[in-house]
Every structure is written in C-alpha cells, then in structure tokens.
C-alpha cells in the first residue's frame, strides 16, 4: 500500500468534484493509479491524452507511486 496525494485540474477536477485527495493505492505504476481513479471518478480523458507529474515535476507513467508524494494528472493544456 502506498499513501499519496493526488491533485486534479480543469475537467478532471470538475469530474472528481475536488481539487485533491489523499489515498492509498496498490497500483504498480502511475498508469495503474490513473486507471483506478478513472473508474472511481468516471474520468472521460484517456491516459494517452494526459501527462503525469510527481512532486511538481513531469514524470513517467511507468514510475511506481511513491509514499507521501504528490501526483498530478495533467489534461491537455490550453493556455495562451
């Protein structure tokens, strides 16, 4: 079990109904973590459209979730 914080932005935040949550996961990697949360919150965005960040830096989907880390799923950006 890994305990961590997940942050949601934009449409993911709207779908989850919250900006962040603390949770425990048994997912082996961040891809698996997103799959779990996609089921829980009904996220429409496929993982292929997202990027993932850990502790404020971009990360790889095959990284294992780290204890006490902050994971953020980054929907396609639309600044500018």
């Amino acid at each position: 079990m890994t305990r961590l914080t997940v942050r949601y932005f934009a449409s993911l935040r709207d779908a989850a109904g919250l900006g962040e949550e603390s949770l425990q996961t048994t997912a082996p990697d961040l891809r698996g973590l997103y799959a779990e949360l996609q089921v829980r919150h009904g996220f429409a965005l496929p993982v292929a459209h997202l990027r993932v960040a850990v502790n404020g830096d971009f990360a790889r989907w095959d990284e294992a979730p780290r204890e006490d880390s902050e994971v953020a799923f980054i929907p396609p950006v639309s600044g500018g």
Partner: protein
Amino acid sequence: MPRFALSEVSFDPAPLRAVLLDERAGAFAAFEGWVRNHNDGRAVDGLRYEAYVELAEKEGERILAEACERFAIHEARCVHRIGDLAIGELAVWVGASAGHRDAAFTACRWIIDEVKSRVPIWKHERYVAGDAGWLHPSPPTD
C-alpha cells in the same frame, strides 16, 4: 528575477518591456494574447485560466531559459494571467530583445508556441448561450 510569471490580476506590459531595454539591442518583438469575444464559432462571455502553479512556473522558466540558449537574443520575458478574465483582457504577454529582428521574432514566436503546448494552464470558456467548458485540445497523434 524570474523570466516567467503567472499573474492573478491584470497587468500592464509597459514595465515588462522596460526590463528588456538594452543598449546592445536593436530589435524587440512582443506577442500578446487577448481574450476574444468568440471561439470556434461560439460567442464567448469571458473565461477563466487555471494553472498547476508550481509546475507552470517551473516549465515556463525552462522555456524562457531554453529560448535564451537557442536564439541570439539578449533577454526574454513572459507573463500569463490566471483567474477570471473579461473580453479584451490581456491573457499572455511575451517579449524578446535581440541584436537583430530575425532572432527577436523567431524567439518570441517559439516562446508563445512552447508556452501554449507545455505549460499546465487550462482555459475555461463561458459562452453567451449560458454554458461553459474546459478546452482540452486533442494531442497530435504521432
């Protein structure tokens, strides 16, 4: 002093331009994104930008540093608004000073393109018709 900043309030580009003034520079190019009253054929009432602030500031800073490496410019700056914006408001400002105009234009264009594609900022448009939505452009299939 950071080269990239997010701003929760409307800002004036004049002092940003002033920072780039340089006796060695013969050229200065700037780009501004303004909130349009329409998008994709729909009348827009206003919008909100949300950012993942910690990462947006880091990634913005990386883009500006990369621009200073890649192009023959003296300096560059970028400020991006977050929060609620009305039609006509300044959403993003980019400026670059250089010895010559080629580098100034190229760097300025490159910076805004990179900011739009890499910095975690999202636009939430409110339409005159009453609905609203997040803009999540589909990534290029490659």
